[in-house]
């Protein structure tokens, strides 16, 4: 059965990347900086439970942040809240949990860690939120995790930030992530490339920062393990639009190219590739590479492109319900995608845990955090539970473009953060980077 792959919402992506992970930001011991006091007195103090929503409504990923806010607000609408306005920055009120009023306050960053941190500080220290949901980008997530350590009295629930190290190494006790990371998003792809497609020599092309490092790492670890070789990795600087000279540097004796660029950039890249002597080289895609725009833009050329990611148009009640609700509530939103579903899941998880503890956070969030840690969810994209580091274990999906549609070809169930490997051994490996992993 054919399924549409669900990334078209990303049509939009300016720089490849977007929302997602990071692995090797400096050694993060957490904390640091000047901690202002949280302004949140919690429900006990002012009778209002404030939830802060942090995404990227500014800068190159503004379109992704808009999708994210739609997803988060949909979860609140589900629970009975009302929107204060139709703008992306408008908050929400009208929800009551266990007799406590619940309010949503919205803040935005431009995808840089600095601005995300400043926005988190505004939410916690100025608006006095009790719980912060976000951020969207991986490097932002690393910065916010550090901040979370300074504020154990506030609960942090991730947005779609997918940096591996936000939870894998040196996690924060009050930071919860109900979505999988950039490496988990590649589960299944590397082995499939070698064993089924029989591509043995692959060159990777990705932007030069941490989310693509995690994606390339997640692809290469099993790919190299199955006997594949990556003779060269091309890291293009952030925001590259003209790939022609980079394409000239790719060796000619390869079976395929692994491309982890965002939608529009991937489209430009393949177009420029086909204007070179590497014309027609097969493509294997990252989690945000193959979207509706790419499939439309490439036409026949798109057929056969294989990719992997956490969001699939499943034939389940939950997915169909979600898609219908999204379309009904936000007519201008695209089909379900990574960012709206990600924020929807995180917010839903939070509201479920809040309901379990009847909105009580005056015990220093102890009950809430415990409820979050052992929460299980049946989401539009499959079941989710958390591991010991409060990191999601969830399904991952493999897709292939067939007849102008991205079809689900394989489900990899219950992918954990260590990809099924021994945790100690996995953590001991060098973090994903320009040079790691390597199998030339």
């Amino acid at each position, binding site marked *: 059965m054919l399924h549409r792959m669900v990334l078209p919402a990303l049509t939009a992506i300016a720089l490849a990347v977007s929302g997602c992970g990071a692995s090797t930001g400096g*050694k*993060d011991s957490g*904390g*640091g900086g*000047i901690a202002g006091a949280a302004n949140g007195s919690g429900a006990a103090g002012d009778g209002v439970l404030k939830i802060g929503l942090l995404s990227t409504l*500014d800068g190159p990923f503004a379109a992704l942040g808009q999708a994210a806010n739609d997803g988060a607000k949909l979860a609140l609408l589900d629970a009975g809240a009302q929107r204060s306005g139709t703008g992306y920055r408008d908050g929400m009120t009208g929800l009551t949990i266990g007799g406590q009023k619940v309010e949503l306050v919205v803040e*935005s960053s431009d995808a840089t860690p600095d601005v995300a941190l400043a926005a988190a500080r505004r939410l916690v220290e100025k608006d006095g939120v009790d719980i912060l949901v976000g951020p969207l980008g991986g490097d932002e997530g690393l910065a916010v995790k*550090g901040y979370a350590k300074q504020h154990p009295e506030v609960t942090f629930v991730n947005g779609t930030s997918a940096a591996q190290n936000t939870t894998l190494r040196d996690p924060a006790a009050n930071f919860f992530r109900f979505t999988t990371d950039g490496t988990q998003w590649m589960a299944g792809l590397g082995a499939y490339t070698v064993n089924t497609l029989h591509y043995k020599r692959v060159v990777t092309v990705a932007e030069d920062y941490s989310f693509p490092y995690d994606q390339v790492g997640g692809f290469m670890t099993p790919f190299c393990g199955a006997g594949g070789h990556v003779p060269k990795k091309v890291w293009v600087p*952030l925001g590259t639009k003209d790939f022609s000279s980079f394409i000239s540097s790719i060796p000619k004796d390869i079976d395929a190219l692994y491309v982890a660029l965002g939608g529009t950039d991937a489209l430009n890249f393949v177009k420029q590739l086909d204007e070179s002597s590497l014309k027609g080289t097969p493509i294997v895609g990252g989690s945000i590479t193959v979207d509706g725009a790419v499939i439309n833009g490439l036409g026949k050329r798109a057929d056969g492109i294989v990719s992997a990611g956490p969001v699939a148009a499943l034939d389940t009640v939950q997915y169909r319900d979600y898609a219908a609700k999204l379309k009904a509530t936000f007519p201008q939103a695209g089909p379900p995608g990574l960012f709206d579903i990600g924020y929807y899941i995180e917010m839903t998880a939070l509201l479920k845990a809040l309901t379990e503890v009847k909105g009580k956070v005056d015990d220093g969030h102890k009950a809430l955090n415990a409820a979050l840690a052992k929460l299980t969810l049946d989401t539009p994209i499959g079941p989710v539970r958390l591991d010991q580091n409060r990191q999601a274990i969830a399904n991952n999906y493999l897709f292939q473009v067939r007849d102008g549609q991205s079809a689900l070809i394989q489900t990899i169930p219950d992918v954990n953060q260590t990809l099924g490997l021994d945790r100690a051994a996995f953590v001991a490996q060098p973090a994903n980077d*320009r040079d790691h992993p390597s199998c030339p």
Partner: protein
Amino acid sequence: MASDMTAGRGDQATLRRPWRAPRARTVAAVIVVVIAAAIPYVTSSFVFVQIVIQSLWMAMVAASLVFLVRFAGMVSLAQTGLYGTAGYVTANLSAIRGLNPWAAAGIGVLVAVALAFVVGMISSRARGVYFIMLTLAVGVFLYYFALQYRPFTFGFSGINGVRVPDLGPVPLSDPLNFYWFTLALSVAALVGLYTFSRSPLGLALQADRDCPERVEALGMSTTAVRVIGFTAAGAVASVGGVLSVWFNGQISPGSLDITRTVNILVVAVLGGVIRLEGAWLGALLFTALTAYVSNITNYYNSVIGLVYIAVVLVSPNGVPGLFTATARSLQRALLSSAPPRTTARPVNGEK
């Protein structure tokens, strides 16, 4: 030309009524001290930390720019690059390499000052808009360096988890202590820069701003004078960089990108580029503006851009210039027998 905008007007203003100036100045100083001492106890935690403390270190970077514009006629867009350099070296040495944080900060400042010296050498021959462009190019180069040179800077993620050291028995990570520490450094920077401007070197710098040919004719090297001035300003900017890293606990290329460069320029212009103290006022206005306007409108960037254009158009002396202009016209209106004005500033409506 830069000097049109800045030369001498501030001095003339204070010289106009020499018998009044000291008293007004004392009163102003007392008010500032009282406010500075009261702020920690009368403001909310957010305003205190995110607006007051943040504007203190931001102002140091802006003050280095104001100093250059005011006393040397150099509009440097490389100041963010210099403060970022100090910040990165401090962050890397302390958080990654585990060096003593004070040593790390010292080395950070030294490296940035050395860099300021080199940048000064490269760009000192250029003047006016040439200088703006050159320093902008240098600033952008440093941004890309931070973005690409992962072995040291860790690319886009930057360096997280930089801890604030203790000053002897005093933990600076406490906001109140950090405030006093930053305030003390701000005052030191202010006094230092003013002292420099009144020293023979500083006077030579101002002479160079007004007429480089005469400075040459006097047998001085304009290059040397400008390089030293640029390096001194770089030192202040780098101290601001160390404070910013301690304040944020992290640094990433976003800390020195073109937006941040523009922000520093906005702070300087808001504060007026007449007096160095303006930088602190400008920074306070700017941080407050960004913290609160973003809640009011979705187009707050446009608001900031328009406010900025308006300030440049209406009052070359920034927001304080607006106040003094208003005060002066009030004074004129009240004192009907006021003497004819001799030192009018080109304020809006007086052209």
